[in-house]
């Protein structure tokens, strides 16, 4: 009986945890200033969905030091450096947590043929850096990201993700 209770508790904790990670990434997208092509409503919804998913994936990858979440949401240079980060974290025993993510995203360029979009993301989150299980740094950060997204077979993926001091 106690084993069943334990399994149930684990399942409940797991589902609550995944709900927490999911709901902790808030993304607002403003595509009214995108040019030269205007962003179609359906494209805007998909970008919003895929960009949010990408940041959930980043958070999981750097917290649990696993490369799996990076599959699908990233490609090109972005995937390369994120993978390097995770691999190096595995070696050094470090991990990071991006908690309470809040992204204010503006689409600033949408190519005439619709094959690339540039976003400016002002991201705020609680950054925690751990050495093993020990918290060594915690800070509320505001980071400006320049992002290039390109369409893949069934989603938009982040090809380039670069933090800058300001836009």
């Amino acid at each position, binding site marked *: 009986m106690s084993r069943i209770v334990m399994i149930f508790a684990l399942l409940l904790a797991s589902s609550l945890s995944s709900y927490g990670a999911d709901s902790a990434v808030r993304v607002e997208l403003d595509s009214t200033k995108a040019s030269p092509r205007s962003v179609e409503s359906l494209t805007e919804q998909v970008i919003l969905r895929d960009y949010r998913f990408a940041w959930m994936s980043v958070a999981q990858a750097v917290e649990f030091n696993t490369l799996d979440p990076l599959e699908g949401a990233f490609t090109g240079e972005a995937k390369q*450096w994120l993978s390097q980060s995770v691999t190096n974290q595995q070696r050094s025993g470090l991990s990071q947590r991006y908690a309470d993510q809040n992204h204010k995203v503006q689409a600033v*360029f949408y190519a005439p043929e619709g094959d690339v979009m540039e976003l400016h993301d002002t991201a705020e989150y609680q950054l925690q850096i751990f050495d093993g299980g020990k918290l060594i*740094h915690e*800070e509320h950060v505001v980071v400006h990201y*320049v992002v290039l997204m390109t369409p893949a077979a069934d989603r938009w993926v982040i090809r380039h993700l670069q933090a*800058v001091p300001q836009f």
Partner: protein
Amino acid sequence: MRRLLTICAAACLGAVCAAQDLHGPTSSTAGEEAAISTTGSGKATFYLLGPGVSRKSDISLGSEVHLQAQDLQNAGEYFAVLCSDTCRSSSFYVTAAKPASLTFLVHPSRVPVGQGDAVSGVAFPFDQFRNLVLTPATVNFQLMAGTASLSSRSAQTRDGIAWFRTASQKSAGTLQVDASLGDLSARRAVQQVASDPCNLRIKGERTKAGILVQTEPVRDCAGNPVPDGTIVTFTATEANGRSTVDAPIKQGVARAQLEAPGATVISVASGVAMGNELRIGAQP
């Protein structure tokens, strides 16, 4: 006594604060070495986290931490953390180095002639570490047919992107599109093909097997030969019915054999273009 203890505690905290601190660069360029100075004495652990980087090392406080060029290849924000009894941190940005390559996207690869705003190109300058160069730079776009320059224009990169859009030319053939930034250049080709057929003309004659009908060489309105494979539709209308045959253009001409024993009117169409009508008498 309590006041004395407070003063002592404050003095001790002050001593700890003064004992250990770090000062990173305000900014750095990708692929260049940098240094972080530390204060204090004794041993400490130094951490560096940034895009693609996560490293940890033991250092002696008071010395300078040397950041190697390979640690700072990716542009972005880096965090340096120094821990002994407590932890101190500092952050700095690495910006892209000078442009070393130009990514150039041109669409479409094949375009009908004479279409407005039909060809577009987008150029992105990257440094040698594939960081997007966000410093404004001038990209020159040049359109060429063979060795003849058709037009050129300059565009300043904005947020790492320069782009252009233009109409396709009037003559079919390869359109070369060059993008250049300083010594860097990239070339793409767009195949300009004839537009829709124009002024379709047919001729035909009755044979033993029916009516053999064929077009004159099919061209667009600018006189470019319409590509082989384009479908031409022949329609034969008799008193008792109508039949249709689709034929692809081969070597510039489309041909079809129609079975129509009675007096027949033959019409031709391709895309939105209609041709002349041909009247053929009944089989003797």
